[in-house]
């Protein structure tokens, strides 16, 4: 366990813990809902990767921008999105954060700087670059953070963003969550070399970090976000992690042959960022087990309330669907 970030005030450390747990419990709920056939459309869970969203977003304010991926619930919640409205969205309800128009792959809350989850792999990279340009022109120290996967790193638009980001010294932090898979393809089978290296030819600093260590992520993001805020330009962070659930819920119904070893999954479960951080807090006597238990209970209650809110919300009015795409239809 890295020692970086250890000098954080205790309440901030506990807040990191709480937020990771909230994401985890919310998604466990979604996994259940999905298994029960309650969720329309595909659902990609973030289980195992929570330390990244939480470690990065700890540095962000509402006015900072993030773009996210198809696996976006964790980023949404880490950036301060409302759990109840997120669940309502995924359930397809009118109270959903996008009124039921977006669903799991499109949860967004612009008032919180969440430009949104994204169904296009790599689709958030250009959006974040544009938001970083706007932020730079605003001149008030805002930054834009782009979360994307190892698979997305193979989209050429990443190179384009590195080039422009470096040229214009944009306040942009590119966070690659390398979870070892691009859908069902192991990263190494579709990726030459190390992703973090791809920043260097453009003169952009690249940092590799243990993505299952929330404090290591916190520390890397601290440097990168500060550099961005201060006009130092972009940084690429490659956070090594693993998704312990499938690429998409329900995948075993159509992917009939295993694409990874059970032992590998188990090995990564043992490095689960949440119990790992819990042990670290306990070992360093920064929290008691009672305190952690109290957090867990509070989180469970928050999730239960959010589920009640979402489940009891009405379905959207179908007449709205045929409305205009435009602010000014004519």
């Amino acid at each position, binding site marked *: 366990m890295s020692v970086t970030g250890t000098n954080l005030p205790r309440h901030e450390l506990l807040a990191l813990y709480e937020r990771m747990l909230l994401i985890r419990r919310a998604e466990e709920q979604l996994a259940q809902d999905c298994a029960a056939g309650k969720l*329309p*459309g*595909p659902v990609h869970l973030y289980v195992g990767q929570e330390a990244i969203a939480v470690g990065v977003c700890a540095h962000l304010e509402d006015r900072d921008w993030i773009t996210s991926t198809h696996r976006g619930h964790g980023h949404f919640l880490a950036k301060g999105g409302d759990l109840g409205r997120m669940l309502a*969205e995924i359930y*397809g*309800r009118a109270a*959903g954060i*996008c009124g*039921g*128009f*977006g*669903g799991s*792959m*499109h949860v967004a809350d612009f008032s919180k700087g969440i430009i949104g989850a*994204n*169904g*296009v*792999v*790599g*689709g958030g990279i250009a959006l974040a670059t544009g938001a970083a340009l706007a932020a730079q022109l605003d001149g008030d120290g805002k930054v834009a953070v782009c979360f994307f996967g190892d*698979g*997305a790193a*193979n*989209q*050429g638009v990443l190179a384009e963003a590195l080039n422009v980001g470096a040229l214009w010294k944009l306040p942009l932090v590119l966070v690659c969550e390398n979870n070892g898979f*691009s*859908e*069902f*393809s192991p990263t190494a*089978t*579709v*990726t030459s070399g190390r992703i973090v290296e791809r920043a260097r030819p453009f003169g952009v600093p690249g940092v590799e970090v243990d993505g299952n260590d929330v404090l290591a992520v916190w520390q890397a993001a601290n440097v990168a976000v500060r550099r961005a805020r201060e006009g130092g330009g972009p940084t690429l962070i490659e956070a090594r992690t693993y998704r312990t659930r499938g690429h998409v819920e329900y995948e075993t119904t*159509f*992917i009939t*042959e295993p*694409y990874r070893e059970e032992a590998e999954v188990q090995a990564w479960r043992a490095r689960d960022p949440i119990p790992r951080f819990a042990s670290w807090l306990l070992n360093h006597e920064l929290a008691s087990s009672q305190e952690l238990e109290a957090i867990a209970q509070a989180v469970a209650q928050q999730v239960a309330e959010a589920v009640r809110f979402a489940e009891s919300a009405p*379905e*959207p009015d*179908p*007449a*709205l*669907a*045929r*409305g*205009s*795409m435009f602010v000014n239809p004519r």
Partner: protein
Amino acid sequence: MARKRLIQAMNEALFEEMERDPAIILFGEDVKASLFGDTKGLWKRFGPDRVRDTPICEALISGMAVGAAAAGRRVICHMMFGNFVYTGMDAIANQAAKLRYMTNGQIKLPITFLAVSGGGRSAAAQHSDAIHPVLANLGGIKVVMPSSPADAKGLLKAAIRDDDPVFFLQAAGRGGEPGEVPEEDYVIPLGEAAVVRPGREVTVVAIGSMVRPALRCADILAREGIEVEVVDPRTLVPLDRETILGSVRKTGRLVVVDEARDTCSFASHIAALAAEQAFDALRAPIRRVTVPDCAIPFAPVLERAVLPDAERIAQAVRDTLAFGRSA
């Protein structure tokens, strides 16, 4: 004959064609694992030379298809969802559709692009576009949209054997649909529409996924004593104008059903053809049943509100008939 799912019929066509012609290669994202099932087993059977998983990089993939075809291969290029075609659009619109014409026919480009197109499964806006109008407007791309497992097999074989770039668009909701599929090797030529249900009073031209609700609509209306003829174009480029216009000339009434957004939909195009070439036969306004000019929303209740269904089609047919009667 055996009952099979559409995706199985596609899978069979791929197996048989790759077996038949060793010049065929297939690549795309996760074609080995096969998200949809269409490419399942191909990697094991034909090996990593002929069946390749690519990284996620649609701009490269679509262009590689063109380059490999120009260099002598017969290429099957899997684009997964129709919306990802936009990501790889440059090489499709600027190269695949034009390279033969621009070079005065020096080469052929035998490429079959596979993609799932359209909505109906709450996959939301970025996974539900019906992209055939955009592709059909490019001019140099053939567009195939099967509506049944049997057609899927025969049309996919025709697409693969064709020497031009073809988009084979499988409707999102249709992979699981079962139907009888002949065992033998058969090909359904591109450019031949099918009259899937004959009738005297109104022609309903229904594209791809819309054939099923159109047939359901025909059942509903039959109970009201209305005889609907349902025509399935099967391929949009090339288009079998004769069969479509022949039906319109017979019935004098036309409803076109298309899962595309209305503006510049293929429904609009078929309506325009009829308004020009079957004008004297027309006895009522041509109705289009399409998706309004919006993205496909996520929640099932919203999505249902924008996609054409049997009831909306039936209403259009009734309106069409009422025109002749009340006017």
